């Protein structure tokens, strides 16, 4: 009898079981551990116990949350606690032997940009990081998820984690995406459909012709926001696009090992007939450029839409939360999205700061002028260098954008890059939570091309209609 058809998630899970306990808990082996300037707590917990890192060769670190976007200097970080965290990543990695991509090294950047870029992230592996957007790495066919600082310390000490097996969910996007429709619009449309708790307890596999048609950058954007759909992780099956992307990356396998690895990667995708616990499908052709209006990523609308009326809410609780969101966002129900003025634009974050994102943004920015303060923050030093080699930086600067240094920057504002209360920011990041970009700041999520459309018009605008 043939073996039962398995999902990609199931295969990776089974391959990493160290111990299966009768009570349903699994000790799962972790192949890759990414660290950032917020991982200092994990190192501190280990030090308290007097334990050394089990596998420093599996650890890769880069400072991203607290680094300045206008300088590469650690000394220039004003907050002494934040400065200490960026300094700690140096001493912690030096002591433990973890590979560091430090400030001043062109490989430094946002951990979720750097991992794939360096070939640290690979198909068929398990990968964790003390950050919720670790789901990003699933775009290469890895099982990748975020953990808290105690589990960070646990992985440092044991290279394992205790896990109950999550369920598997398939999200299929079939058909052809319209022009200027990106991975960002796809994932916002998915979240709008299933809700921000839609995938709680599940690992999502994104599939269908529209997903397969995305570049790795587009897939990284989709998987990045799996957490905004409540998912434990998000993945895309490795294919020719993945293998071409991996080839030649600094930490990717080489020569004979490359052939062995590719042969393994070919076995990773879900088997024909594999059964998922849940199935959701979307028609690619129906996806328009998306913009969020509220304070949860599920509050996403097509740019052709209007700010919703709380009176249309299905129940009293929903009506209440819509009213609260509209109040915070300073929006009037019924207003066409295209008439909402924007104060500021941020292009960056682990969702949308890769070279393809910057190319898409530059294409719209070329020959136009921004009318509101607008920033571009590349995801890594290598992305920045590549963009400069292609002359994208000049396009941005000529259009009036600020071209800044790599890091998380205004996605979360931990480095001080925050907006002002009531400021309305069109942002390519992943969270529009209350206060995410600073107290009182109103965040709207959208794609890089749509962010430029807002920057050059001063309001939300349909990039497909820009003259």
């Amino acid at each position, binding site marked *: 009898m043939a073996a039962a058809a398995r999902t990609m998630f199931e295969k990776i899970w089974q391959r990493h079981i160290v111990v299966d306990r009768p009570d349903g808990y699994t000790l799962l082996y972790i192949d890759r551990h990414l660290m950032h300037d917020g991982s200092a707590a994990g190192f501190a917990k280990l030090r308290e116990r007097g334990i050394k890192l089990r596998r420093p060769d599996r650890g890769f670190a880069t400072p991203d949350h607290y680094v300045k976007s206008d300088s590469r200097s650690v000394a220039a970080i004003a907050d002494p*606690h934040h400065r200490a965290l960026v300094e700690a990543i140096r001493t912690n990695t030096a002591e433990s032997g973890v590979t560091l991509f430090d400030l001043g090294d062109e490989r430094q950047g946002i951990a979720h940009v750097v991992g794939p870029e360096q070939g640290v992230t690979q198909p068929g592996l398990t990968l964790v990081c003390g950050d919720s957007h670790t789901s990003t790495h699933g775009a290469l066919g890895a099982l990748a998820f975020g953990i808290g600082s105690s589990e960070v310390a646990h992985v440092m000490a044991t290279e394992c984690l*205790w896990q109950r097996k999550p369920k598997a969910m398939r999200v299929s996007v079939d058909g052809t995406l319209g022009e200027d429709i990106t991975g960002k619009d796809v994932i916002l449309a998915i979240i709008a459909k299933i809700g921000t708790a839609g995938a709680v307890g599940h690992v999502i596999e994104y599939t269908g012709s529209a997903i397969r048609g995305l570049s790795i950058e587009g897939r990284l954007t989709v998987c990045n926001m799996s957490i905004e759909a409540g998912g434990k992780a998000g993945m895309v099956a490795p294919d020719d696009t993945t293998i071409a992307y991996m080839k030649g990356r600094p930490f990717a396998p080489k020569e004979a090992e490359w052939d062995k690895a590719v042969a393994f990667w070919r076995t990773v995708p879900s088997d024909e007939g594999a059964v998922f616990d849940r199935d959701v499908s979307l028609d690619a052709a129906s996806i328009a450029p998306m913009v969020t209006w509220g304070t949860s990523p*599920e509050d996403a609308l097509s740019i052709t839409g209007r700010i919703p009326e709380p009176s249309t809410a299905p129940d009293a609780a929903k009506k209440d939360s819509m009213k609260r969101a509209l109040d915070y966002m300073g929006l009037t129900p019924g207003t066409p999205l295209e008439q909402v003025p924007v104060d500021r634009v941020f292009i960056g974050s682990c969702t949308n700061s890769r070279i393809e994102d910057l190319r898409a943004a530059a294409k719209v920015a070329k020959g136009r002028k921004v009318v509101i303060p607008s920033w571009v923050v590349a995801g890594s030093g290598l992305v920045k260098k590549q963009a400069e080699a292609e002359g994208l930086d000049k396009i941005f600067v000529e259009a009036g954008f600020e071209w800044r240094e790599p890091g998380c920057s205004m996605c979360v504002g931990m480095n001080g890059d925050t907006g002002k209360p009531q400021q309305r920011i069109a942002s390519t990041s992943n969270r529009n939570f209350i206060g995410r970009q600073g107290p009182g700041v109103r965040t709207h999520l959208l794609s890089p091309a749509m962010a430029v459309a807002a920057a050059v018009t001063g309001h939300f605008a349909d990039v497909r209609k820009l003259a």
Partner: protein
Amino acid sequence: MEAFTTLDAVAIPIDQPNLDTDQIIPARFLGKPRPTQVEALFHDLRYTPDKKPRPEFVTNMPAYQGARIVVAERNFACGSSRENAVTVMVDNGLRAFIAPSFGDIFFNNCFQNGALPIRLDAKRVAEIRAALHAKPGSTVKIDLASQTVTGPDGKADRFEIDSFRKDCLLKGVDEVNLTLGYEKDIAAFEAKQRQEMSWL
């Protein structure tokens, strides 16, 4: 880790669905020593931008002082992986969270800090919240061994919890020490992986 057995304490109702970890502790308070974060709990919900307490927010109401339990809405503590969302609540005395559903990472982080997240049917959770609103300062009783939550109305409900997590909480097991006990299995796995995935 401090063991968790029973808790009979004042509970605070929180009605917003999808209350994210940025609301539990805003990002600007992270990256500072833990004792300085205590005041950051629900900061922007508790205070106006000019730092005045909002009297209508539950934790500012005198009746809820000394609360140890949170009764929340669906997808409670979704969002960022910041474990500070658990520790800031624990440091404010809150050790049990009852909701129809939770953010996955927060849910796991609770067990690392001797805190208990309890999933209950949405209707029952709404009922408990309504009872708390009706009589602020009412108590909720939790017994982990028998897996029951008793609301202010005296009605008891059984909740589900993984026996692994339950054992660890009841005994205050330290997970790292537990795992180090599996050293042989981990080493065997690594030896096998060196053979099968030599490129790693």
